[in-house]
């Protein structure tokens, strides 16, 4: 202030002179102190703020690193450079013993960038040395083409890929693609199904459970047993060869759970080449091969239906094991004549009707019970609606509407109603297991699990049916089904195929449905032979008793040890008492 005053006071101050700015703020002492005090306060406040913030950061660090070690690690794990091991696009499918039925392998394709190839001659030589099936001239031409991309070979095997990698030629690259492989080939072709080139399921489990297969929830375990499949395959192939049949099919079901242990339909195909690449095959034949007779087939099963008819009559109380029906004359109704194949021409008791497979007796039994009872019983067994199973290829049953008396009669012995073999075995499993209907399934259940079931008939009816089915094998049409030790019981069926409204005598569908061991059934088996022809060994017969039945016996003998069914002494009191029919005791039973 003073200096400023002094300058101003200068009397001879140059006109343009301006006093220089003061070097330091010229303030009063009191004023300066107050100002400095304010600054210091502000500084302290700012420092305190920073300290607090840094303290928070430090505390947070301590919390993350020391106090919650695990979560911090998992937090860090989330930001990792390499993705976890990539699971394949489609999950594996395995059988009940973890054998691979379908798997996905990485299959690389080899391509080259010719601009990067240094020495085309040498590269060609090297490629040919590991892929000898390629044409050297063609490869060389490709490598000197000067393009930026040429295919060398599509779909290499893992070993070939390794060999090519070992060559170490720059400019050779792989494009990776996943391929579905079925190591067992045709063994479970219809069940497992196959995939298209874009890895979408097109048939079988691959199609029906496409979402689950793609969901990568680990391998999908089927209830099938590859060994049982193989035995079915071998024996059915033999039957087709022996009787020059058009096809055959077989299914084996665990009657206590509804699990399908074996399912085979012949002719079949190799899912590794589903497109029927064999030029010898006509499209119709290729289609025939992919047709699953068990689930998609819709057949008039013939006498096999007498199981349902008899069970219906017994369960409704209309008939008993001692009741007799007149089977001495053919039945004429409308334009139909119902006759017996091997008629006894007398009154027959219910066990006799079943054992000798009498159409007349069965028809009379059905009429006795009436259309309403018959229809509702078949509906309860699930024979009037498509089977429920983990496959999309499921047939819709055909039955008459309206349900007339003539239909009642023909349905009694399995004509005029067409169902799939899968429906039949599911229903028969319920009939022999004590009357509990389980849904058929292709997925393995955990051991000891008891799936929900519906009681569809009295346990007593089931017991009587077991006795009757055993009788057929002991004395009736299926004596050749006796696999000694395994107490087989069942029913044969030989139906003439319906071609455009009339039945063809020469085109038969011979089938046998059985269960074993009959005193406490574990497995049901259905064997179907499509259009068998009689041979010298079968005395010209192509009926079920000569075709499906002996095959069933051989199959049961082979699969029973695998399925853990112990053989028993069939003459032991425990077995005979369980399967004894009182009304036939002491009588001489005529064999069929």
């Amino acid at each position, binding site marked *: 202030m003073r200096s400023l005053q002094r300058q101003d006071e200068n009397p001879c101050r140059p006109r343009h002179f301006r006093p220089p700015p003061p070097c330091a703020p010229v303030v009063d002492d009191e004023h300066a102190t107050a100002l400095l005090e304010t600054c210091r306060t502000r500084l302290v406040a700012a420092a305190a703020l920073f300290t607090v913030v840094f303290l928070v950061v430090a505390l947070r660090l301590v919390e993350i690193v020391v106090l919650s070690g695990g979560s911090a690690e998992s937090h860090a794990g989330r930001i*990792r*450079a*390499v993705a*976890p*091991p*990539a699971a*394949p696009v489609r999950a594996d499918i395995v059988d009940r013993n973890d*054998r*691979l039925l379908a*798997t*996905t*392998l*990485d*299959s690389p394709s080899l391509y080259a960038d010719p601009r990067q190839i240094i020495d085309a001659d040498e590269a060609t030589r090297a490629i040919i040395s590991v892929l000898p099936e390629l044409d050297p001239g063609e490869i060389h031409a490709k490598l000197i083409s000067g393009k930026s991309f040429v295919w060398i070979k*599509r*779909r290499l*095997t*893992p*070993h*070939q890929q390794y060999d090519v990698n070992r060559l170490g030629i720059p400019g050779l690259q792989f494009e990776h693609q996943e*391929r579905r*492989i079925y*190591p*067992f*080939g045709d*063994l479970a072709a219809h069940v497992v199904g196959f995939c298209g*080139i874009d890895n979408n399921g097109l048939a079988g489990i691959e199609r029906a459970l496409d979402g689950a297969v793609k969901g990568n929830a680990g391998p999908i375990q089927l209830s099938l047993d*590859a*060994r049982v*499949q*193989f035995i079915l*395959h*071998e024996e059915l*192939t*033999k039957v*087709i*060869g022996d009787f020059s049949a058009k*096809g055959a099919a077989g299914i084996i079901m665990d009657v206590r759970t509804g699990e399908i242990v074996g399912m085979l339909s*012949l*002719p*079949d195909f*190799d899912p*590794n*080449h589903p497109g029927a*690449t*064999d030029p010898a*095959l006509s499209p119709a*034949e290729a289609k025939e*091969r992919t047709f699953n007779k068990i689930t998609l087939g819709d057949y008039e099963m013939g006498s096999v239906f007498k199981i349902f008819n008899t069970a219906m009559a017994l369960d409704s109380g209309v008939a008993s094991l001692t009741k007799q029906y007149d089977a001495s004359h053919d039945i004429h109704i409308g334009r139909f004549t119902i006759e017996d194949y091997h008629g006894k021409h007398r009154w027959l008791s219910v066990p006799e009707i079943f054992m000798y497979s009498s159409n007349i007796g069965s028809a009379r039994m059905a009429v006795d019970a009436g259309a309403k009872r018959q229809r509702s019983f078949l509906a309860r067994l699930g024979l009037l609606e498509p089977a429920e199973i983990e496959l999309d290829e499921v047939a819709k049953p055909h039955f008459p509407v309206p349900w007339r008396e003539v239909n009642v009669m023909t349905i009694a012995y399995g004509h005029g109603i067409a169902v799939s073999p899968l429906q039949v075995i599911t229903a028969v499993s319920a009939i022999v297991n004590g009357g509990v209907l389980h849904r058929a399934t292709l997925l393995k259940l955990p051991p000891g699990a008891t799936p929900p079931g519906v009681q569809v008939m009295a346990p007593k009816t089931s017991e009587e049916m077991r006795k009757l089915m055993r009788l057929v094998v002991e004395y009736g049409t299926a004596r050749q089904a006796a*696999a*000694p*030790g*395994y107490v087989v019981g069942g029913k044969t069926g030989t139906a003439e195929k319906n071609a455009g409204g009339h039945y063809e005598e020469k085109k038969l569908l011979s089938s046998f449905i059985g269960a074993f061991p009959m005193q406490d059934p574990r497995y049901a088996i259905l064997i179907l032979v499509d259009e068998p022809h009689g041979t010298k060994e079968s005395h010209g017969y192509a009926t079920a008793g000569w075709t499906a039945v002996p095959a069933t016996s051989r199959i049961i*003998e*082979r699969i*029973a*040890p695998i399925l853990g069914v*112990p*053989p*028993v002494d069939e003459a032991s009191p425990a077995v005979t008492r369980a399967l004894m029919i009182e009304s036939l005791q002491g009588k001489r039973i005529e064999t069929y």
Partner: protein
Amino acid sequence: MTRLGTVFWLVLVLAAGFTTFKVKYAVQDIEDELNRTRRQTIAELQETRVLTAEWTYLNQPERLAELNRRFLGLAAITAKQLQRSIEEIPLRAPAAPPAAPPDALVEASPGPAAPQAAATPLPVTSAALNPPPAIAETTRQADVISPPDEVSAGDGARPPTSATPVRLAKAGPVLPAPNSLDALIAQIAEAR
């Protein structure tokens, strides 16, 4: 005082910086290692998948049956050969009349009697030792198919590579069965 403080903080900053970088590089190394291991795991898993598929392929029941027919001639087990429990196996009927009735024998000398009873040849064993004629026949057939010298020339445990699985009679024409997974994949590749 101020200078000393400055030096102290400078040293601290340098030390902290150095440690940070050291830790950073160490972490980077570990991450690289982790990635390497992960890549290796993926490769190993792929390899395992391929080997499992190949093993399954070589265990095709058809192929095993054919190998059995060639080299072993084992027959399917029959109900006669199966017994449910040890009680069901009948003991051999007492041969020559012993000096004392069995009960007395056990009481008199439990030592030697018990093992003797256990060592009694069981009917099951004898049945297994004397194969039924069907087995003998298969074995004979196997001999015809592959002469003994060829069998011994083979590696023993491993079947000769030429032993392609022979398909059983089929309902119709089929493609020739490839003898390895590689061949199968190659065949698929051809087809597509």
